[in-house]
């Protein structure tokens, strides 16, 4: 480990300047939407903008108090993405619809929860105590949508929603975090065992069969989600999250090879036995054949309309509010990337993808700097999850891979996703705070001692 010779710098003022820029992006987009809609600058604009500003600066102030060494770039990136998402969702609102304000309410709630996490948790290492509680919580969260009475039933082919009063919620989004905590906690404790045992075949060291237990479990969970909830995207996301954490924990490429083999095998079986998976593959590969285009449900019309929109946007886009994203189903949620491509063009979409790349890169940076194995694994897992989720969504919309139902983090309409991603941001900020801050010599109360291998 390279010893920090310079004294740690909080860089909160850098964050403040970037935050102003980020707010300018979101509010500017909102203003353009207002200019291009018949009811220009209605009360929604001032209301939304001022609330967003207040929330962003409140978050900033909390960081000054509680996590003053936190990474100064993460918050502005997320505020920019979230602000842009609000503007885009507001842009798609038909008269009488209120998705924009609903998204704003969820944004404020999510930011508040994230602030609470930072304020009360203080140190991410405390989460390691909840390793097995997290596993139990994940199991409950994943089963909830299938429980009669609370399940919201099958929505658009997937059973991932629960209903509490008037609200619907996707518990799987939160399970993403609890699973990451479990994987990180379990592997940071058991990595030495897994690392040392096993037979070597050629350049690859194979794990012992009994050490495969967690991987088989993760695989079964993913397959379970695919079979019972019909949610291919979440299934891939969880399994990818697990593979990256176990790879980082052990540095063994063999885990990745086994994992990818399991994914491909599972995917192949799923495509043979489950019509919804087969339809997705067919809609991807044969998107431009008439039968597939016209098929409903499960046709390629959504993807193809999104592609038409993006092609129409071209390099510079049609301009916010000037395109025809209303032709694309779910333009404010699943297909919001196509909306950005259409109205903001290749340039705008590249900028958004760059923001995501910067975001997960800062997350990996926090993982590098973290001084505890748990923090490293958690930061790495969460950052990779963001990257993988973006890849699955944007790759699906651009027909690089089959389209699956995952949300675009911070942009797409949907409260559960916002809440989960803001909590992830809170965790990443906390990990980066300990990574970038002065070395804390006082041990965390009751925290088990651990060996940290640094390379």
């Amino acid at each position, binding site marked *: 480990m390279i010893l920090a010779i310079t004294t740690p710098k909080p860089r909160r003022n850098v964050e403040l300047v970037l935050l102003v820029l980020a707010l300018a992006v979101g509010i500017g987009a909102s203003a353009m939407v207002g200019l291009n*809609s018949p009811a220009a600058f209605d009360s929604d604009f001032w209301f939304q903008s001022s609330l967003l500003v207040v929330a962003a600066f409140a978050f900033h102030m909390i960081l000054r108090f509680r996590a003053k060494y936190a990474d100064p770039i993460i918050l502005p990136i997320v505020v920019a993405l979230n602000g842009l998402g609000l503007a885009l969702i507001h842009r798609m609102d038909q008269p009488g619809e209120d998705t924009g304000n609903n998204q704003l309410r969820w944004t404020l709630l999510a930011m508040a929860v994230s602030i609470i996490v930072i304020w009360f948790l203080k140190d991410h290492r405390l989460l390691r105590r909840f390793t097995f509680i997290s596993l139990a919580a994940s199991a409950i969260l994943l089963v909830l949508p299938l429980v009669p009475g609370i399940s919201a039933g099958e929505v658009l082919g997937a059973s991932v929603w629960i209903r509490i009063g008037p609200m619907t919620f996707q518990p799987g989004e939160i399970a993403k975090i609890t699973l990451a905590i479990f994987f990180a906690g379990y592997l940071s404790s058991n990595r030495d065992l897994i690392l040392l045992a096993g037979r070597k075949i050629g350049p690859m060291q194979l794990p012992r069969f009994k050490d495969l237990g967690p991987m088989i479990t993760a695989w079964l969970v993913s397959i379970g989600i695919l079979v019972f909830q019909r949610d291919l995207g979440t299934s891939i996301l969880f399994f990818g999250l697990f593979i990256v954490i176990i790879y980082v924990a052990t540095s063994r490429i063999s885990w990745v090879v086994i994992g990818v083999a399991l994914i491909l095998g599972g995917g192949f079986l799923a495509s043979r036995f489950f019509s919804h998976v087969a339809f997705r593959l067919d809609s991807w590969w044969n998107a431009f054949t008439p039968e597939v285009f016209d098929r409903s449900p499960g046709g390629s019309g959504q993807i193809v309309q999104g592609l038409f929109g993006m092609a129409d946007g071209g390099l510079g886009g049609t301009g916010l509010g000037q395109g025809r994203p209303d032709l694309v189903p779910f333009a404010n949620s699943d297909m919001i990337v196509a909306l950005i491509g259409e109205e903001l063009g290749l340039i705008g979409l590249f900028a958004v993808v760059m923001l995501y790349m910067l975001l997960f890169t800062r997350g990996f940076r926090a993982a590098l700097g973290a001084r505890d194995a748990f923090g490293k694994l958690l930061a790495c897992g969460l950052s990779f999850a963001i990257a993988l989720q973006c890849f699955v969504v944007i790759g699906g919309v651009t027909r690089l891979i089959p389209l699956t139902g995952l949300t675009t983090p911070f942009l797409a309409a949907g409260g559960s996703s916002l809440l989960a991603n803001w909590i992830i941001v809170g965790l990443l900020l906390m990990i980066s705070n300990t990574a970038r801050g002065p070395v804390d010599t006082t041990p965390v109360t009751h925290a088990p001692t651990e060996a940290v291998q640094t390379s």
Partner: protein
Amino acid sequence: MNHSIRNAWMAAVAMFALLFGAISYVQVIGAGDLNDNPWNQRAVLANYCNDRGAIIVGGKPIAESVAGDETCKYQRSYAQPELYAGITGYFSRTYGSTGLEQQLRDELAGSSDQLFLDRVSQIFLGSQPKGASVELTLDPVIQKLAYDLIPDGQRGSIVVTNPKTGAIIAMVSKPSYDPNLIATHDPAKEKAGYDQINQVPGINLNQSVSGPTGELLAPGSVFKLVDTAAALSSGKYNKDSVLPNPDSLPLPGSSASLPNYAGGNCSTRNTADFPFALEQSCNTPFASIALDLGQQAIADQASKFGFGQDFGDQLKLQSAVSIFPKNLDQAALAQSAVGQRDVRATPLQIAMMTAAIANKGVQMKPNLIKTVRAPDLRVISEPKAEALRTSTTPDIASQITQWMTDVVSQGIASGAAVPGVQVAGKTGTAQLGDSGLNNSWFTGFAPANDPQVAVTIVMEGVDVSTGAKLTSPNAKKIFEAVLNK
């Protein structure tokens, strides 16, 4: 551990590199193919919501873009929709466009070459694209009069032109429809409107052409003007020729025969001259002429009047091509010579034939467009009167004019006579099978010595007396209205 963190980061970056590639492919490299895809509505919809130019008649818009709703800044609106539907056509998001809306799409949308500089300035000023407005040659008063002369529920067309310029003064047909019904942005209302229009008998929005420019009808006796011109130009006949006029002409190679109209005056003479044959509209003299001259002569003369030809480049309306069939046997030729059998003409074609006779044998291009103006009112184009083709010689034209004058003054088109004005005319009654119903025609012009207006009327599927009431007397009203202006 940090080494594998870096590897994981590189894997994530590699995934994002693929994303950048995929986005570039969709939005730049493959964008052309996607934009050209036939399923891609965006090209069609690109200027759907723009401020299209107005179509103007008598200084008032009959089609214009008005403020729309949230989904579309502008929406098309038609004034007196039924009266002008045959001209304007419709402009629909789902069902496309017809009529002038379709044929003048570049001008109305502002995407024609002449509007290039306007588009450039619109880009810099950030203003909404605007289309050019088109003023028509139609006279709103005559248009309304003609429309009202066709009774509701009656199928028919009326075409009023200026034979010297080719300008169309009025062009109407019934049944008509309200294009506003499918100009709505609400897909459900649009579908309902479409179904509602198509329920009206005789209307089929799927047809690309209909009405005066598109409907192909048996012309009946008005086709005898073609025979007359062919006879005179052959050199075998002159104004004093004596024509055989038997009550019935046996059709060669067939057991059937072609009779003269039983109730008329034709049977009073066994021979006829041209004035008598035209005045009483006898069949057998003209069938004899056709059998004598042969089908090529008749076909050539028909072609010179416009059969088998288009209407030139100034009409800007989709139109059907009138037909004089080829490879006729003698019986078919005899029947074709009196406008029966498989001869088919659009109302506009008959109007053009008459206009050529009125204009000393020169057929002018039918023209509907007076001026096309840019949004700043600058005139972009202003079609001039142009000759389309020479149909016959001035001498023959003036001879036929004289005989047509007699048809009105002392023949069976007397209902078209206007006091104090010499009116030239010819009627036609094309039998529709054995139903007893006919297509009843009148075509003529006035004043005969200095033609200002040509009128062609056809009423479809009427009995003889209704046809007589709805053609010549109505022509009189139109002549009076135009000439007294």
